[in-house]
């Protein structure tokens, strides 16, 4: 096995993991504030279709991505209004948001099926020519860096900033946060919208960079995986990164093992990433106290304070 081959696998791992990482980071922030939004799939699809439509007309990936982010954020805003002003159940609202997003994106994108974007390469010129490391680290699209930067920023946000503490406090106990004079509503609004924006961005990654095309339901269940990854990570940023790449790596192994001629049912081999995630979580989650430390206590519960 030569070194280039390993580099290729790692490269593919990062590519598979990146959209998951982006959505999961957004959902993590949202959940840290105590809000469980199951609408990722809908928000991602809206981001994907909007980004594609805009990039198609403007020929600008950047504006396309902006569109993705805004579309995801708008969907999340709808979720925020319904759950926070009308106290609707978060789980049900999230699922309704997914149904709406799947329908709406399909409706909007009808005339864009069969269209393509001209590929724009995002390689970083000099650095990517370094052997091995250059390939693994630097010949990526820019969103890979953004996603890693985002993870770092969110990690720092929770670890070292007052605002991060505020979000955590709101997620722990909105009642006491409010009695301290924090605006639960404002914090949760921001967290939800951030989650939506990230889901939209990840959708844009799929339709603009990963496979630059629009097709209905093109997220193929990645929203659910991202949701599971946040739980997998026990609400810790560094573990979200680990989880997303682990899942990406195992998905690639499903394909790589086959190309080595391994004669196992491809359907059974396809369970690899799912089984691996469960097994790793089992190994990681034996210490209950540690998990409790990071899990937002008020997750999924409506907050009925004054506003």
């Amino acid at each position, binding site marked *: 096995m030569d070194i280039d081959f390993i580099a290729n696998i790692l490269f593919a791992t990062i590519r598979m993991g990146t959209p998951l990482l982006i959505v999961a980071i957004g959902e993590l922030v949202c959940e840290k504030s105590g809000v469980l939004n199951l609408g990722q799939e809908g928000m991602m699809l809206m981001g994907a279709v909007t980004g594609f439509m805009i990039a198609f007309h403007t020929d600008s990936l950047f504006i396309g991505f902006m569109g993705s982010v805004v579309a995801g954020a708008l969907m999340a805003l709808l979720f925020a209004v319904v759950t926070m002003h009308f106290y609707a159940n978060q789980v049900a609202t999230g699922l309704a948001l997914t149904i709406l997003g799947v329908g*709406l994106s399909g409706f909007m994108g009808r005339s864009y099926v069969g269209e393509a974007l001209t590929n724009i390469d995002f390689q970083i010129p000099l650095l990517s020519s370094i052997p091995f490391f250059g390939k693994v680290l630097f010949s990526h699209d820019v969103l890979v860096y953004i996603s890693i930067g985002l993870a770092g920023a969110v990690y720092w946000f929770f670890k070292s900033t007052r605002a991060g503490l505020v979000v955590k406090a709101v997620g722990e106990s909105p009642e006491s946060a409010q009695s301290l004079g924090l605006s639960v509503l404002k914090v949760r609004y921001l967290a939800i919208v951030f989650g939506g924006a990230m889901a939209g961005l990840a959708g844009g990654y799929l339709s603009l960079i990963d496979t630059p095309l629009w097709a209905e339901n093109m997220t193929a269940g990645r929203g659910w995986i991202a949701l599971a990854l946040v739980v997998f990570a026990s609400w810790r940023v560094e573990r979200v990164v680990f989880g997303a790449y682990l899942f990406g790596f195992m998905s690639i192994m499903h394909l790589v093992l086959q190309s080595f001629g391994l004669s196992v049912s491809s359907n059974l081999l396809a369970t690899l990433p799912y089984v691996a995630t469960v097994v790793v979580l089992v190994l990681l989650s034996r210490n209950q106290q540690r998990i409790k430390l990071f899990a937002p206590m008020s997750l999924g*519960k409506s907050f009925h304070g004054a506003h």
Partner: protein
Amino acid sequence: MRIKLEARGQQSKLMSYASPILAALLTLICGAFLFWMLGKSPMQALHTFLIMPISDPYRIAELLVKAGPIVLCAMGLSICFRANIWNIGAEGQLLMGGLVGSCAALALLDSQGIWVLPLILVAGILGGMAWAAIPAFLKNYFNTNEILSTIMLNYISLNILLHGVHGPLKDPNGFNFPESALFSDWQTMPILLEGTRLHLGVSFALLAMVGVWVLMSKTFIGFQIKVLGGDERSAHFAGFKHKRLVWFCLLLCGGLAGLAGVGEVTGPIGQLVPNISPGYGYAAIIVAFLGRLHPLGILFAGLLMALLYMGGEMVQIHLDLPLAVTGVFQGMLLLFLLICDVLIGYRIIVHKSAPKIVKQSLSIEPPAVAIEGK
């Protein structure tokens, strides 16, 4: 002027019936607008969407056939959700029920007798229970969060099902296509209403509803589940065996979902195919909450969900509207239903001028609409 919601202090009986009606009205208005925008007659479109699926006995039977598995899953899920167990895995449990039931059916392909079908059903139920036992075991002994394990198990069970139907379970005379042999008459659900597909399995949904209702309102274990869902610590102080409740809730849900799955393969499908479920297990989650986790509410919510699916087909057939439009319509109706439920616990107050935020109003009691309140 400023509009504000104020807690009622207790649930409004009137509103718990009126809010779905209000939601329906809002949806009708917005739906009419949506269809008008698309150049269709709003009245005709709404009629096709909402009335046509229940316009004759055949269609009503179809509605029940469609609602059956969703309601069964949602009944099981409601028990889990009341106990604060976040089981997202009804889909996988359903698929496993269908798969294991089909294995039994294929093993008994030549058997005849009245005992064959019950045996298959039991196999299906056990399959679903076994699949639900995994997250229960992992949660109880390894603290593994069930949201993750159940989502992942959904995908795993789908792939195992695909493996079975592409491999060992496929029809030996079927040119290697991914379908099992057709089940015999002894192995399929009896039809309750000739000329339709209304089969025995649908009545299980009703039985499950009664069973869940009795369980939750008449038994001690139902009480324990509610306490556990309300506050885990007080359940602990009361000496309830937490692990046993987790086992109970998940196995019950798995059994019901498994029954739904085996009911599909021995009912309207009549063989094992790769697509047993078009996402019934996921639809059941939203149905459970739309029904406010109450058995009767779930029944109605399940029927509504089935109506929306069938209505979506109807507008495609009769009005040439694409499926995506029906997704928009469905999402809209579901959101309205969720929004209007606020009126059960709150009343709308219109202030003439914007009031200052009063800190004291913090102490209002949370209403019972939210799941944690039950």
